[in-house]
């Protein structure tokens, strides 16, 4: 085909323009034929977020960060998000900024609310920040370093102590080891010299075990009867313990009544007047008997033996 100059130029320029237009949209991660929807959000700081960072909703990529702009009067950063997927963002939703991981890439997750009202495109949703592993490290780092320091000091002391013990007790350990060695030698000698006896002992033990086994086989009925008796006995024991428990409960109630109540026994236990009376009676009786022994006449005079007999 013979193309004239104008056609050639037209083809070249048109192709380049089309390539430039669609290439530009393609590189900015925008859909080639449909339009892009814009959402705005704000953060106090946007560490790790760059233009082109991915925006997800429920783990699905719905767009990317189009622009970052620092707002001096509010001391915050305006993030313009371009949404390329046909989604709807409800009112009350927020944009969660996940902090950078060790590879340094931050992402935004749109957390949808259950509201039914839809945020208009080019509208605003609030931004929240999620603490990432690096943030956690940087905030807890100082205290962690302190505790690590303390732990290391302790380990150092422990190792030093162990070293000192080792130096001091080296000879003790050595003698213990040599004693143990000689003991094991003696044991070996004993075993070697009495090997036959030990063998016969093992054989005898074996026979005994076999006898026991046959015995248990032959007398298994007896054993089972014994076991059932034991079972009945334990049931009786159960009853006994139940009645004992009942008795102890009644005894306990009696005792508590005695301790606190107004009954005779309680008063005997708690009221000291009976004791005092008895005590004074005993004293008086003592005195009386003593007086009788000392002056029997005083009493005998009145008793008039003659009248008695």
């Amino acid at each position, binding site marked *: 085909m013979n193309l004239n*100059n*104008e056609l*050639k*130029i037209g*083809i*070249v*320029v048109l192709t*380049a323009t089309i*390539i*430039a237009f669609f*290439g*530009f949209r393609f*590189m*900015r*991660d925008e859909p080639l034929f449909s339009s892009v929807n814009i959402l705005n959000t704000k953060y106090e700081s946007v560490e790790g977020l*760059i*233009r*082109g*960072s991915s925006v997800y909703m429920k783990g699905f990529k719905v767009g*990317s960060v189009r622009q970052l702009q620092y707002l001096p009067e509010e001391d915050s950063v305006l993030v313009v998000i371009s949404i390329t997927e046909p989604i709807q963002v409800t009112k009350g939703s927020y944009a969660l900024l996940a902090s950078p991981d060790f*590879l340094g890439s931050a992402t935004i997750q749109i957390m949808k609310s259950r509201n039914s009202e839809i945020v208009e495109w080019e509208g605003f949703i609030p931004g929240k920040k999620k603490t990432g592993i690096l943030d956690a490290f940087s905030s807890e780092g100082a205290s962690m370093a302190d505790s690590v320091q303390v732990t290391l000091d302790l380990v150092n002391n422990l190792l030093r102590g162990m070293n000192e013990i080792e130096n001091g007790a080296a000879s003790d350990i050595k003698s213990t080891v040599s004693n143990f060695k000689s003991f094991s030698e003696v044991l070996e000698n004993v075993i070697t010299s009495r090997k036959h006896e030990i063998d016969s002992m093992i054989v005898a033990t074996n026979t005994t075990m076999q006898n026991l086994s046959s015995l248990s086989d032959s007398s298994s009925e007896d054993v089972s009867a014994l076991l059932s008796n034991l079972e009945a006995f334990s049931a009786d024991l159960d009853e006994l313990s139940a009645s004992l428990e009942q008795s102890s409960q009644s005894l306990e109630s009696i005792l508590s009544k005695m301790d606190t109540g107004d009954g005779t026994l309680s008063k005997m236990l708690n009221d000291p007047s009976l004791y005092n009376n008895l005590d004074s009676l005993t004293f008086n009786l003592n005195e009386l008997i003593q007086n009788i022994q000392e002056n029997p006449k005083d009493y005998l005079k009145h008793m008039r033996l003659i009248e008695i007999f």
Partner: protein
Amino acid sequence: MEAIRQFGQYTLLLYQALRSVTEFSTYRNNLFAEFVKIGYQSIPIIMLTGVFTGAVLTLQTAYQLDTDLYPVTIVGSIVGQSIIIELAAVIGGLVLAGKVGARISTELGTMRVSEQIDALESMGFNSVTFLVVPRVLAGICMFPVLYITAATLGICGGVLAGAIDGILPPAQFMQGARQFFFPEDVVFGIVKSFVFGFVITSISCFKGYTAFGGAEGVGNATTQATVLSCIYVLLSDFVLAAILL
């Protein structure tokens, strides 16, 4: 001293060209012919240059970053941004300094030594308007088009090389390229290609227009035009980077 004299001569030629830019009817046919020669006929070599630059850059970047410390998408970021900012414009410029620059200086040099330019002048044509202006204008207009072609095919070459060599799948390459894609970089690349278009065509026109001494003179003019074009492409690249970045 000779260099300063030549610079003065060059400035004077540009001044004459600038003054006669408005005489569109004089150079209209020549302009379209130059559009085709500089733009349309350079597309194959620019496509080839772009694809291979992207492919080689991808392989070498992957070779240099052969560690688990970076995500593999970084290859796409480096290749994409390098091509858009620097390589598509500069390597394209150097290739075109050879292809376009040599042709222009040879054409004008031959016309000068065979006294065709003098004939034009004697017929009442302004030779600068007729010969220099369409070539420089065509260079300025067509180089951005060639830059866009080279950049697009460079990234395609990178994607292809990454996929064929098993370095990274196209999706990851593009993810990395998009992560560091800034529209200003494209503008910077287009500004560069404007400047390179002007530098290459104007130097070649000047060297051809001032050629003397028969076939040998034309040969010298062509050599000087190509070498000077390459030098000034690199020099202006540095100056633009210092000013614009």
